[in-house]
């Protein structure tokens, strides 16, 4: 099928199989491998991207469901060689360890800050509750999001 969608503010027109997932469109068709696959069933959140302003698991979204939608991935955050506030804050606060959950974690946080620029800690923890991290215990991730929100 023909799929038209906007990814990181660019319109793409792609021929994709009917059963392809948005995750595979991003990783395989567009080479945007910053979005990770950790479980393939919506449990780990490593594949989180923002679709029309909402954080979604790209492994649970069929390509057809993304038709004409605006998708934001981790690759779309950096502007003119300047990192997004969240990316800077993750680096500064030591919120990154192995890094495999990091893109999805940042996208969940980004979706939160887009709809709620000044979240409290409970709102932050809720927003990333669908993103598993095995390395950090989440403390520094929560700190990083808090600090980014204060900027």
């Amino acid at each position, binding site marked *: 099928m023909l799929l038209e969608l906007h990814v990181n503010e660019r319109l793409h027109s792609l021929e994709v199989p009917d059963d392809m997932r948005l995750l595979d469109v991003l990783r395989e068709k567009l080479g945007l491998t910053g979005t990770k696959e950790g*479980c393939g069933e919506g449990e*780990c959140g*490593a594949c989180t991207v923002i679709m029309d302003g909402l954080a979604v698991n790209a492994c649970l979204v069929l390509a057809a469901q993304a038709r004409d939608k605006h998708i934001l991935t981790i690759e779309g*955050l950096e502007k003119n060689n300047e990192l997004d506030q969240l990316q800077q804050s993750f680096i500064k606060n*030591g919120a990154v360890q*192995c*890094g495999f959950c990091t893109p999805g974690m940042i996208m969940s946080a980004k979706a939160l800050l887009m709809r709620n620029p000044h979240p409290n800690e409970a709102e932050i923890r809720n927003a990333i509750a669908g993103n*598993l991290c*095995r390395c950090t215990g989440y403390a520094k991730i929560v700190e990083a999001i808090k600090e980014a929100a204060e900027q």
Partner: protein
Amino acid sequence: MKPMLNTVGKSAFRVDAREKVTGKALYPSDIVMDGMVYGCTLRSEKPSAEITVDKSAALAYPGVLAVLTAEDVPGANHHGVLFKDHEVFSSGRIRSIGEPVAFVVAETAAIARQAVKLVKVEYKILPAVFDPREAMQSDAPLLHGDSNILYHYKLRRGDVEKAFEVCDVIVENHYETSMVDHAFLQPEAGVAYMEEDGTVVILVATQYPHFDREEIAEALGLSQEKVRVITTAVGGAFGGREDITVQIHLAMAAMKLMRPVKTVYTREESFLAHSKRHPMYIKCRTGAKKDGTLYAMEAEIIGDAGAHASWAINILRKAGVHMTGPYVIPNVKVDSYAVYTNNPFTGAMRGFGAAQVPIAYEQQMDEIARKLNINPLELRLKNCFRAGSLTATGQLLEESVPLERTLRAAAQAISRSGEEAPLKAGKKRGKGIAAIFYGTGYGNGFPDVSRAAAELTEEGKVRVFAGATEVGQGAKTVLSQIAAEALEVSLSDVVLVCEDTRLTPDSGTAAASRQTYNTGNGIRIACEKLRIELQAFTAEVSEAQGNLLKHISLKDLYQAAIAKGRLLRSEAAFTARTSRMDDETGQGAPYWPYTFAAYGVEVEVDIETGKTDVLKAVCAQDVGRAVNPVLVEGQIEGGFAMGMSWTLHEELGLEEGRIKNRNFSKYIIPTALDMPEIESIIVEDPETSAPYGAKGIGEPVMLAAMPAILNAICDATGARITRLPASPQEIVKAMYGKERKAL
């Protein structure tokens, strides 16, 4: 007095952070090459059987390029970290579910997945055994050789029998720990391709590229020079990437097809493919005098190795050596056994045997304190290791033993902090503390060497080479900081190369909490040598110019060296101290250095349901010296999360060797909503033999979490939990004596 340090001790930002927050870091699943084909693994579905394999239908499937089985292995059909008791592909005898049978390679991943179902496997079922205690019996079905007991460690000190007779108080119990998974976020994956000269290159997320190279070469029948392992970004490891998974299959396929080959495991396959934490059955008896002096301990530890040895010997040895906890006990008898069963194989996982035993010894400390009516902190302080203490193996702890400080800090912090919200009906709160120790390195006399090299580059930077893997723990940052300190240059002038066996020397595995200490030392020595050489050469250049030169940049120094045909480069190796223990008594000095910690925890237990929430944790961690305090905190927070989850939730549900919960909807790891506030207290007591005093902490940070939580649960409810996980039903059973409901 603190030496003047410029880079060590500062919380430098991670050198790999930018590529990770931008999504540019390449994990193996992100790699794409021209003409790449895809592989999919077929695994055994029975725990004990003889098999015959018919691959004809799969081979005939359109798009299939190869179906590799045991008959296709060019070299030795085996691998294994201690014994070569894993087969690359089963040659007929299956010992556990999940063993590789075939690797189907096809033009697309979808075809490979489809075709793998066409490989026909006929199973002739054989007897099996799933409980290591039964597997030790003489009539049990045998897995390898003539006994399922693959290792027995004996620790003998003093006279335990006589000692117990004069003890005023004795506590005794059985403890069981669950089998758990590393659950790193990045499932196993890799890519292999051929270089023009016949070298096979494997891109993989591994903990030890140089050892992988050795194993791949042996299975492929190649010399090691013809095998090159490149470590990609690694999405977590925790011990689960010590054993071979994708490496040999990929290399075989690339060699056969002369095309790049990729494989990516699903989460379910990841659960099947790598090792697990050894479940341990621990019988333990501890005796003390009226005044609280510990006097005797007797313990038996049985560890379920599953179907393959992996690190079972080292893990059960480490469990035995650490059985007394960080306390002086003059009379000790410990027997630990590693036993084969038809369960999934167990191996390295954060803590490595030293993680299971604190669940027993630290609960017994609290029991003794209760019986003697002594404060649990006072009992621990009375007996805890200090500089000059002897361990149960007779090892003298010469220095850097700040256990008392960690204990006092943790106890004080947890006693003054308390949940302020009023207690709701039906809930009880309690607090607990626990202390641990952990011996760094391979241990028991096994050569523990880290090599490193450093050279001046054309850009005026120093390139440092070490085969130490960044698995997320921060090795690349910490080792760069150590290099910068030794070279007296800024961190940005150091370029650490650690990813490629062709470029880097062997620095040992990213395990045993050894990289900061061991490879840090190798790098420190190499960089100090280079610094001295640079200084000497600067003087030489300066003198040649009539000593008019005030300053010469490293860039100019490089050019001056080139003009003279000199390469400014140094190499070094560091070998850790370790000696082999006596086979009959376990006496000796197996590890060095030791790291200590004490944690305090507050919990809230629902007395109807048994559901437990950890409200607060204070973690006082000895680090020798913190090279990067923020990274240390990150380890503590992550280690506590892993320990808390193991204590309260995690368990692989096994049914006749089959893991029932092999996905994240059924195997639950903590989310951001589950974590309490964690207060990290970094305790420094520099170790002379360590680089700038720094000791490894990757594993120690997890060990006190489990017993501190269990002691807090007991403080809240009076219930002693002797079987992990301390699930709600386990707690209810312990409180009311009700039978535990089936899982």
